[in-house]
């Protein structure tokens, strides 16, 4: 709606941490008969988005609400995603959960949904400026966490490199910026390269090979997602530098965990897509039930390394995150 300021999910004041929702708004309310939820995400070709869908489904099953989960045919298919979202509105779903390809491509949905009196929850990644509800993590914080790891564990500083996602995509821009500005603050670290990896393993591999060749004294890579990070790991191994170069990814997909456990990938920033999905659907359904939630519900993330990988995987993750949240208060 027009009187809302354009959303910046990272800085919005009207926010609540996911761990606080139950405390503030009580147990999950009863929903009208026949409530059904529709969700549209970016693509299913990335595990992150499939896990998000699992979260939706898990919560839907728990509370007995059917959820339809659709995705565009490829990342970047902006109009295709809009078509899907329009279809969901036409079909009379009671609430929509959308993870837009870009900040703008699902904008028309906001108006159509409003007209149909259907709440829309923007879940993660790109941010629709007029979104009234957003569930997700602080993208910038991804990069910040990795930078902090370097500052703590490599006190002497050194050269680091960034492999970015698709040029111009919100998450990539924010994550990169968070990392870059945090790590350069103390003056000990130098970002010697920040190049596009286009979310693509092969491109990232080639970029990493070139960077390592030019800067054999590099101490670390930060990649905007895990697929790219796993490509970089191979390049580091091929150069025989696995003991000297730390590699971090983002997302926390299962392959990243496996690689971390195998001692190859140094770490990843897990944003817990399954949990995010559960929280998002819970938020959405609470809106359907008439509750007034803050504009942003922040979901957790954690820097995963070999030391803590077990704590954050499997069914124990939720508990661990609640503990973290409690400790953070």
């Amino acid at each position, binding site marked *: 709606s027009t009187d809302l300021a*354009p959303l910046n999910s990272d800085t919005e004041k009207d926010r609540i941490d996911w761990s606080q929702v139950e405390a503030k708004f009580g147990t999950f309310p009863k929903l009208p008969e026949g409530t059904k939820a529709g969700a549209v995400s970016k*693509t*299913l070709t990335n595990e992150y988005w499939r896990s998000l869908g699992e979260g939706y489904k898990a919560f839907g099953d728990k509370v007995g609400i059917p959820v*339809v989960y*659709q*995705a*565009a*045919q*490829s990342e*970047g*298919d*902006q*109009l*295709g995603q*809009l*078509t*899907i979202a*329009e*279809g*969901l509105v*036409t*079909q009379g779903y009671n609430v929509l959960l959308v993870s837009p390809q*870009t*900040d*703008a*491509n699902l*904008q*028309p949905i906001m108006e159509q949904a409003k007209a149909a009196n259907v709440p829309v929850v923007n879940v993660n990644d790109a941010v629709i*400026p007029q979104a009234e509800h957003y569930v997700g993590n602080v993208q910038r914080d991804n990069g910040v966490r990795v930078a902090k790891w370097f500052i703590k564990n490599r006190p002497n500083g050194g050269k680091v490199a960034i492999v970015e996602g*698709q*040029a*111009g*995509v919100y998450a990539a*821009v924010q994550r990169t910026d968070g990392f870059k500005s945090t790590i350069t603050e103390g003056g000990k670290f130098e970002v010697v390269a920040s190049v596009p990896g286009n979310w693509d393993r092969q491109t990232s591999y080639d970029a990493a090979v070139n960077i390592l060749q030019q800067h054999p004294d590099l101490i670390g890579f930060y990649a905007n997602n895990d697929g790219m990070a796993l490509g970089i790991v191979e390049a580091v191994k091929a150069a025989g530098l696995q003991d000297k170069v730390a590699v971090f990814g983002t997302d926390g997909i299962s392959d990243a965990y496996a690689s971390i456990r195998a001692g190859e990938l140094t770490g990843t920033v897990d944003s817990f897509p399954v949990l995010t999905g559960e929280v998002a659907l819970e938020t959405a359904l609470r809106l359907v039930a008439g509750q007034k939630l803050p504009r942003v519900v922040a979901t957790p993330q954690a820097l995963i390394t070999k030391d803590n990988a077990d704590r954050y995987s499997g069914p124990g993750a939720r508990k661990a995150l609640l503990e973290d949240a409690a400790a953070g208060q």
Partner: protein
Amino acid sequence: MSDTILVQPRAEFMRGVSMRDAGTLIGLVVILAVFGALVPGFFAERNLINILQQSSINACLALGMTLVIISGGIDLSVGPTAALSAVISASMMVAGVPFPLAIAAGFAIGLACGLVNGLLVAFVGLQPFIVTLGTLSTYRALALIYTGGNPVLGLPAGFRAVFNGSLFGLPLAVIIVAFVAVVAWVVLKKTPFGEYLLAVGGNEEAAYIAGVPIARTKIAAYMISGLLAALAAQILIGRLGAAEPILGNLWELDAIAAAAIGGASLMGGKGSVVGTILGAVILGAMRNGLTLMNVQSFYQLLATGLIILAAMLIDRVTRGRG
């Protein structure tokens, strides 16, 4: 083989171009019938309008693409052209320039992008595929650099109303594109330029000897394609209320698919406005239907591929050689 190559094309001509379009129409009818049978509410007026609206942007681009293809070329740069035009005119609007002026500027950008393509193809003599592959990256980069990668938000309501309104229950975007289609049809069928396009794509050397202005004709085709990309961009940003530098990703493939389903030959010299519009609607109806059936995205992708092939097959069977 022999009959295929040497005899059937003649058959096709005998029956005339409209037979070819009839083939495409049959393809559309089959697809509509299948979805109609499978999806309740597919034939609801509201959904049919949705299909038209969702097809309109692709149809707009595909019309320009058809003209370029007829001239023997191809334009891969339509998406980035649209993006560049969108971000520039949007930032003008946001900066307070009256929106008709900003729209005109957007159109000028589209024309300029087309002009560059056209000059490289017609005067420098480079291959259209490669020229527009190069400008595909170049224009996209310009749009990204211009905006720093950020979307341009806050388009004036007056502007958005122009492209979001309806007339006689039809979305204005659909009406605009229908109008463009009529103009394109007239241009192709009734003007010297249309004849020139067909001649240049059909036999460039003969056209040259007959005094056809080859370079001008080709350049004009690319400029029209650029202009229509800019129009598609305006329609889209009107709908979205924002202009993004990454808008128009992969538009070229849909536009080419629509033109080809509609009977354009990538060898040049052949193509139909009516066919292209039907082709765009086939693709739009398919997306719409698959979504309503809640088909999972991998299977949607599969269906997209198979339906493009099926449309070409149906079409092939109904009229002879592709």
